[in-house]
């Protein structure tokens, strides 16, 4: 097959030169001053492809830290009586040794839980996922030389990096990092007397996440501008590949919701430092009545979840886009119902702004108000269901290649179904009375936006690794990675549903106090062991990743998968500007797979006379 592809490639290159659009790019960039030295090329790079790699590798760094934290607190939950003295060299005073037995201190347990959530949600699944693939794919798939503003794009990464530095520093404070949950609800987060982590730890948490918001906004405005303005000739919105639609809507969501979070953060900072009472009222703590009245802790929850709910779609939409592309390419079939997929992304994006209070059914908001949020929350299941059915139908009648990318895409669909369906329980406020803040919720969101998003990310990394590093990742290791992760992830989170239905609350350091919660020891052990296994196999992925960067199988042809999208028309080692000559122009949608007996028809190939567009809608 590779010979055919090589031969075809040459024809395609000629086609780009004949049909492509000449933007005189190379007339202006003699010698390419942006990439002239090591620092300019690899560190303060303005090339979107390098920035994508920076996001990815930073994301991997944080993912390892965040996941390792979960292993430590899972040890506490699965083996509360085990001796943890052996981690003392790492955790220091947070391991309290008594009678020769080291135990994790409750303060640090909560700090770990909090940091795990913050790191995974923001640093890994927002920056690491959307940052990586938006940067890599938007210019490549729409046929642009780079982002609209490469400089802002670079700043976006460095603000993220700075945010990471501040958060990392906070891990080593003597009072510990913030420990009030990743949602940072006041008054716990506002009052240093309420918890040791709410002192300097919380200050740094707020600074770090504010920097992160800046990063997201800089990135987002760039993605939007690029998608709207820099599409190549012929690339109408309705011809964009689905990942681009997903990244575009993600960026819009981020741009509209992150400022609201930032405003909440500022008010919280004022409450902490300037004596205001936005979120505080009638508090008696540490033997003292505070002189703060009139605020409402619930206001913060509204501001937080106005971001927080779109945030879960900011995480999952890019994964959905990636999976749609990967499924279609490797099933050798067009994605089923392209227009419905786009419309459902838009519908999800819109609805994600009017469902936020479903996180707050039991928080003391007027129960009447919850009626609306129940309705919108369950409506959002409809476009999600459409997407699932379309993915499955994409497989129907395909000629499926099972490589690691495809396996993770299939795994994503399974996870998204399992986790999405439990959302229907939680979105119904009456059931939420019982399920709220139990392990059922933990199971639900980990499967649907944790594991599923990771599966989408893995699918993307395996699929586009050759595009990033001109080499392939090792398939055998990739499959081991897939199977252990798939089975292991279900082994971790499936039993948590049972814990939740049994009423076991989340964020408990120990279950021994309550007769109703303490009899699940074996199950908690099972979960912990599964978590350790899954964590180890992620290390395998990391080894495979870095090994393959340098030693992986070389990419010999430009378009190894026989894909239609533009990123596979660039040279194997694409430099700054992506295409050496003209920018390719586009003549068809991205999903002409198996059409008219041809295995695939790239977007740059002109329509033949009398040929019907693949997506019959236009």
């Amino acid at each position, binding site marked *: 097959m590779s010979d055919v592809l090589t031969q075809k490639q040459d024809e395609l290159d000629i086609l780009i030169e004949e049909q492509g659009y000449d933007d005189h790019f190379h007339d202006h960039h003699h010698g390419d001053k942006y990439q002239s030295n090591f620092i300019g090329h690899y560190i303060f790079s303005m090339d979107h492809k390098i920035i994508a790699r920076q996001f990815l590798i930073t994301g991997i760094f944080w993912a390892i830290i965040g996941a390792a934290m979960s292993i430590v607190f899972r040890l506490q939950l699965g083996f509360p009586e085990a001796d943890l003295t052996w981690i003392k*060299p790492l955790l220091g005073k947070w391991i309290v040794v008594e009678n020769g037995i080291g135990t994790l201190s*409750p*303060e640090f347990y*909560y700090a770990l839980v909090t940091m795990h959530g913050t790191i995974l949600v923001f640093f890994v699944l927002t920056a690491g996922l959307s940052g990586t693939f938006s940067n890599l794919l938007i210019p490549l798939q729409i046929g642009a030389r780079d982002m609209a503003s490469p400089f802002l794009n670079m700043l976006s990464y460095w603000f993220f990096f700075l945010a990471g530095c501040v958060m990392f520093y906070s891990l080593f404070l003597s009072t510990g990092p913030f420990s009030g949950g990743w949602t940072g609800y006041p008054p*716990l987060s506002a*009052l240093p007397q309420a*918890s*040791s982590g709410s002192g300097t730890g919380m200050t740094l948490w707020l600074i770090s996440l504010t920097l992160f918001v800046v990063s997201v906004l800089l990135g987002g405005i760039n993605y939007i501008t690029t998608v709207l303005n820099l599409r190549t000739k012929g690339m109408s919105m309705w011809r964009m590949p689905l990942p681009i639609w997903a990244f575009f809507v993600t960026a819009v969501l981020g741009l509209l919701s992150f400022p609201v979070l930032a405003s909440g953060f500022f008010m919280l900072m004022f409450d902490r430092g300037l004596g205001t009472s936005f979120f505080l*009222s009638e508090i*008696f*703590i540490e*033997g003292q*009545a505070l002189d703060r*009245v009139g605020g*409402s802790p619930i206001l913060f929850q509204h501001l937080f979840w106005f971001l927080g709910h779109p945030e879960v779609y900011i995480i999952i939409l890019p994964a959905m886009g990636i999976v749609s592309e990967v499924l279609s390419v490797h099933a*050798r*079939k067009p994605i089923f*119902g392209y227009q419905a997929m786009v419309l459902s992304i838009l519908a999800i994006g819109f609805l994600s702004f009017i469902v936020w209070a479903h996180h707050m059914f039991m*928080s*003391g908001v007027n*129960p009447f108000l*919850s009626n609306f949020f129940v309705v919108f929350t*369950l*409506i959002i*299941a409809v476009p999600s269901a459409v997407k699932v*059915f379309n993915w499955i*139908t994409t*497989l*129907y*009648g395909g*000629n*499926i290649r*099972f490589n690691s990318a495809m396996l993770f895409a299939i795994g994503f669909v*399974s996870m998204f*179904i399992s986790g999405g*369906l439990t959302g*229907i329980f939680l979105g*119904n*406020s*009456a*059931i939420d009375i*019982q399920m709220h*803040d139990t392990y059922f919720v933990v199971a639900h969101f980990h499967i649907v936006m944790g594991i599923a998003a990771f599966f989408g990310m893995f699918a993307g990394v395996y699929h586009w690794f050759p595009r990033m590093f001109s080499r392939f990742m*090792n398939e*055998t*290791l990739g499959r081991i990675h897939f199977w252990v992760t798939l*089975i292991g992830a279900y082994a971790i989170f*499936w039993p948590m549903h*049972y814990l939740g*239905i*049994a*009423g076991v*609350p989340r*964020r408990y350091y120990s279950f021994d106090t309550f*007769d*109703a919660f303490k009899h699940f020891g074996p199950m908690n052990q099972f979960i912990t062991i599964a978590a350790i296994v899954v964590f180890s196999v992620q290390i395998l992925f990391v*080894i495979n990743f870095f090994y393959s960067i340098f030693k992986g199988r070389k990419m010999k042809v430009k378009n190894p998968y026989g894909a239609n999208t533009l990123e596979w028309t660039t040279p194997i080692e694409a430099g700054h500007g992506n295409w050496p000559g003209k920018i390719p122009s586009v003549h068809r949608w991205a999903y002409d797979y198996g*059409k008219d*007996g041809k295995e695939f028809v790239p977007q740059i190939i002109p329509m033949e006379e009398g040929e019907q567009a693949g*997506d019959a809608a236009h």
Partner: protein
Amino acid sequence: MTGLVAILIIVLIAVIVVQIGRLSEIAAKIRGEEEVEERSNNKTAVYLLLFLVAFLAFCFISGWMYKDRMLGYGPHSAASEHGSDLDGLFNITLFWTGIVFVITHIALFWFSYKYRAQKNRKAYFFPHSTRLEIIWTVVPTFVLVYLVVSGLRIWNDVMFDVDPEDDYIEIEATGYQFAWDLRYPGPDGKLGTKDFRKIDLATNPLGQDWTDPKNIDDFQPTEIVLPKGKKVRVRINSKDVLHNFYLPHFRVKMDAVPGLPTYFVFTPSKTTEEYGQQLRDYPEYQELADPTDPESAQRWEEFEFELACAELCGKGHYSMRRLVKIVEPAEYEQWLAEQSSYYMSNIRNTENDPFKGQLLDIEILERDRELTSEFKTAIDAEESSAVIRLKNVFFETGSAELKDDSKYELNKLASLINESEGISVKITGHTDNTGDNDANIVLSKDRANAVVNYLSDKGVSGLTAQGYGSSQPVDSNDTEEGRKNNRRTEIIITK
């Protein structure tokens, strides 16, 4: 050293893993990539199918195994009236989502298997189908509408606040780091007002306003005790950070928010004992409650409902436990009668008591009842004479002038004497042993006379008065307590 060994082992494993990966690549090259690809493609397709079967089996078997431990299943039916509605809705949702879960998973993995790449097959060009898409937009919409409507009907029923006309008990739970304070309204059925500025951990943990008469009878038990079958409104408060009032067996959960009282209304439908009985037939609950003690009772015998916190509130979040006891109404009444008000036992006549030195209505009523019964006992007794101490008759210090508060007791006494026939009553005054003895005798005589004069004004005749000074102590004169007891006014009833 151990660290070094550990690092070496990790490095070794990494090397091995990489070698395995390389080996497979080299093998693929030798055998011919396409053939290897096809074989591994087929194998993977079979694995996916096997995974489907194993996964679905795991889901059903594990669910079945754990059903007796989960709320709503096996013995764990809801202990409140609204709880069974919630459990029912849960099961309806489980039914519908279960169907979708199974069908979509079978389709996903079956298609993956069936349409695995084969050399001579071409993929079927099937970009869209309006009819199919309409079907799977409309069908989920109908199911979801059904679930929303059933859900909201239950939700609005459950969350509806009580009507003031309803017959309900209102209690209060206040969360703080890291426990709950509980408060019951006492006989008046009303919780008194409070203010966080009045909180004093030693004397007033809830910041109750003692000038509010509704607070006088409020009591603060250490466990929640409630009668079966009676509607309860829990007023939920927090002193410091967010907490959550969570009663798992009753399907009750609501955040406790500082500055914003919340509530939850529910009706317990099973007593603790009944719920324990429900558990007794299940092996999980026949285990020993304390596995280390072979003498201990079985779990179902020790069953208790529990109150937990379900909103992260700091390092002690996991330990905010209180017991909840549901009892028969008669037992509840009995328990209520045993409780003593926080004000009466901790505040009354301390420096924090705004009514210090004054009689409260409730005390007057109580004393009226007491005096009546003492008077009756004296008259019905076989002995010809009886002594009753006039507890609430007070004089200004060192003088025989009656204090205002004495009138309640004396008025009652007057009516009691007037209602009885054939008795004669003598008023006696007593002092402690401090001061001049003669003066004490004069003072006690004057005080007895003052009482006689007051009673005479109320139409009581034939009374006599006598002053004994300190000659008839009833207690030791060596302590302040004892001297206080010795300063007294009594009546002697003779038939």
